[in-house]
């Protein structure tokens, strides 16, 4: 890894280069993407996914790249190793740790507590931390309603942000990769270097756009099974405990029932002790 000044923020540099030329290049690239059959599938798929009417999973707004900076924090202040590597690594770590936490065994079960996964406030600290950086849960009231069962939807929202940010970067990739190089090397940049960097990042973006969604979908399918069973497991454990209570209650009832014949076989009024 090259030694670069850590303080240089990436966004202002990008803004500087996103002039008319950048827009023109972006439009040309977008047309090129639309005409490329393999990439068309990707975009087509994204557009269909964004048509989902669920308000949390909205369309790309153009602000997702900025949001991703906020979610992943300072770790992406440096352009090298390139932004896509850092994004993908951070994204993978976030998803992986939240999923592992979600499927983890619950250590102790308290049957007297109203702790049920779908109740507000049951989200883990990691999940809350991530959700608080995503638009649907930025308001404190919304965040307070977040529950453990929302894990899937929060991760899908992160995925949407990630995909939108990648797509946005893809559109402006030529200028962005050039700006990255200018930031690092000053004016001593060759055209071949720009094209090489552009090609490298383009492949990575396409890879992430191809893999991220099906990987998360499959993961959630498996994790939800485990999550669903956990609810059942807790219920069954509580039924078992209450069964023991019921058994003890009936055992006391049986002890009392032993007196029944004597109580009721009262032919003589001996019970009147007044």
């Amino acid at each position: 890894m090259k030694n670069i000044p850590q303080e240089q923020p990436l966004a202002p540099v990008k803004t500087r280069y996103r002039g008319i030329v950048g827009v023109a290049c972006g439009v040309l690239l977008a047309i090129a993407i639309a005409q490329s059959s393999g990439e068309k599938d990707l975009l087509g798929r994204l557009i269909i996914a964004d048509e989902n009417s669920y308000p949390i999973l909205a369309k790309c707004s153009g602000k997702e790249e900025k949001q991703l900076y906020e979610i992943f924090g300072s770790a992406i202040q440096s352009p090298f190793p390139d932004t896509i590597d850092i994004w993908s690594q951070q994204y993978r770590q976030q998803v992986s740790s939240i999923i592992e936490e979600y499927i983890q065994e619950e250590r102790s079960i308290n049957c007297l507590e109203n702790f049920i996964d779908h109740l507000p406030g049951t989200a883990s600290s990691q999940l809350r931390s991530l959700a608080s950086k995503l638009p649907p849960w930025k308001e404190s009231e919304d965040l307070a309603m977040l529950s453990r069962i929302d894990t899937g939807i929060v991760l899908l929202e992160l995925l949407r942000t990630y995909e939108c940010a990648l797509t946005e970067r893809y559109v402006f990739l030529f200028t962005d990769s050039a700006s990255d190089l200018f930031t690092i090397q000053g004016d001593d940049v060759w055209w071949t270097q720009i094209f090489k960097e552009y090609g490298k990042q383009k492949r990575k973006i396409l890879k992430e756009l191809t893999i991220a969604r099906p990987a998360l979908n499959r993961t959630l399918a498996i994790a939800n099974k485990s999550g669903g069973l956990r609810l059942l497991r807790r219920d069954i454990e509580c039924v078992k405990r209450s069964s023991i209570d019921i058994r003890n209650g009936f055992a006391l009832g049986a002890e009392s029932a032993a007196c029944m014949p004597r109580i009721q076989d009262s032919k003589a009024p001996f019970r009147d002790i007044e």
Partner: protein
Amino acid sequence: MHNVPKVHAGLYDDVYGFMLHSTMLNEVELMVEKFIPKALNKEVVRLQQKHIDFAITENYSQLCNPDNNDGKFIQYDQCVTLKNTIIELAKRESLIRTLGRDLQTIALSYESGASGYTGEKESAIYRDMYEIGKIWESGIDRMTNPIKQPPIRKVLFEDEDKAEEIADDLQTEFQKLFEGAGSSKSELYNRKLYHKYVGAGWRYRHGVFYVQNREGSCTKDGEGDETELEYIKVRWCEIEKLLKKARNELASGGFDPPLEPEEIAIFPTQSIGTDLYLWIRNDDAGVMWKNPMRPILPGLITSAGSVSEGGDYPIHPREPGEDEGICSHSFGARGYLCRPIEADRCISNDAEDFDADGDEILLTGCEPQNFNTFVRMTESGPDLCKVGGWRTPVRQDGDQNLVKDTPNKDPKMRPGKCTNCAIDMHCGNCGSGAGITRTKNDKGVIEICIEDDGIAAPKYIIMHELIHAQQLCDLPPGSARPGGCCSREYSAHIISCKAMTDDGILDGSGIGVEECASILSNLSCGNWKNACTKVDVEQEVFDKLKEFIKPEEDGATCAQEINALDPRSASIKESSKKTCDTNCRVEYDNTIGNNLCYIGQCVEESLENNRIIPGRITLGAQDEAYPWDACTKKDPQLGRLLELPPLSRTFLPAYRGQHIIQQIDILLCQGNALPRLTPPILCSFDPRRRTTLPVRFFYQMGTSLLNQQGEQQARSDALHLSIENISARVGQQLYNYYMRKALREFTDIIRAANMLTRQLGELDIPDSVCPRFYNGSCRGL
């Protein structure tokens, strides 16, 4: 143990890796990378592993660089051809491997935690369900439940260190199965070949003795038949040795109390690295995946190191039988796939709209016969828990001097204080082919004659006849048993048949408890074919049943059985005694069912033998003995609108996979305004759509035709995205269908119980007892 290789990197990372390999965007998986150079050995260059990733990333400068090809210069067109050849082969192999993993992922997402493998993480659910059942069930339930449920016991290791030691040794053996090193793949778990590891991880999922009993001892360590599916069958001798050691040294005996017949003892699982765990039962030991995400994929490189070229469809592995595979596991055996469903629970007998027309997959097997439902008749009241055994034998204080039952006639035997009858069993030739129970004589004794060479072992005939004795015990001497022959016999046979099933006598016969009881009821009532059943019993089934239940030549004799009664028979005998007498001791296992049996019998005995409203000792001859009867309040009519649901049985609906696929085909074709075509690809391009509806300009015609493919693609994509949702809904529908009946009836029962409890709570109970002197008034009562 931190730096050992593993295949499970975390759920998301695993799935991400699968997707990466399926798309081949920057690398192929190591196995494919090793396979291609061996398979394509006649190319212009001597292919090496490093060439494969160069090809799929279209890195021509590296792929055809002389430095990477023994200094050989390669023409550009040759380079392109080489790249295409590599990509083509890599794509095909990746597709197959992705398909295998996807199928495994789908199965995992639906079946994980519900499959019933021993030691499965979520098996806590089965275990708890089983324990809940044990807390609730009465002894009678256990004796009459038509489903065979061998008892399961949780046992802890006496020597836990030894268990850990064996697990560590196993881990060492498993680690030896990783192959290859030094690859520069980006994914950690793609840097070694793990096909042998995966094969061994699955091989002993049903246990080492399970494998050895079917395939013999291990002789060829790690050697296969060099087919694509060889790793399903390869044996691993060192692993087998350790597994046998685990079972033999940790779980072979010393259980206190001793295990019942067919009882299973399950020990805690031991972790083998991060991927596997060791499970141990008293009868076997095996290994299973903690997270079974990786299937055994069709082999590319054989165990001998050669290339598996494929091209043939390998012979399918044999489908496991009813007691094999997952059904060999204690919890799995209770699943619907592992036992036939009684006929009246089967789809074919239900007036629903399912019919087995070939388009359906029936997930259940049916018992062949459809039998009458037998109704038990009693002399008075429900006689709760009066058929079967729920009490444990106890020598009561009041019955110390009773004559002990011997295999001979005991003429001095008399009922004790706590019994309404004495049961005198004796062995001999009874002339009935099994046994006979006579009515209670004047002395209160019921004689039972047992034959040594009856239709079944004396143990089961004793159980059967003891039930008949129970039916007679509380009746006056000389009274016949209430009810018709079939209801009397069925009650007795269901208990002996259940005992035979529990003891494994009927294993492999395919005859269930209820079917056995019905056939034997026919036999007892005069006509083995149809005395009690709606349909005729087939001769073949009857003969098979007789063959299975016939007594063993060296089995226990009648005399031995009477002298040492089977615990179940002893419990039945004990349960025929009076329950709610303060001078008699009663012992039973503390379960909800048994407590209810006790309370219920006390209530019955109180109501049947005593008055609820007291009387008085009269002074004059004409005085009223029960003056307070007139003070009885109006009957509150508790539960007057109580409707208890019939115990109809739920069943699994058919899975109509073909029908669902056809519906999706219809959707696909409708999306393109075409009728259903099979295969649906036929809907993808039909020039008639445009040629029969021409537009004004030729260039528009051309554009429209060209766009047609794209339109179809977009709709197919949309449908593709929806299929998962459609499938989920279909699955949900099946589940709802299955649960609807059961839940509705359960809800009705809970509602009825709730109503009764509430009404009891609202009951106005008088706070004063009947006065000593009757003053002619009901005031204050």
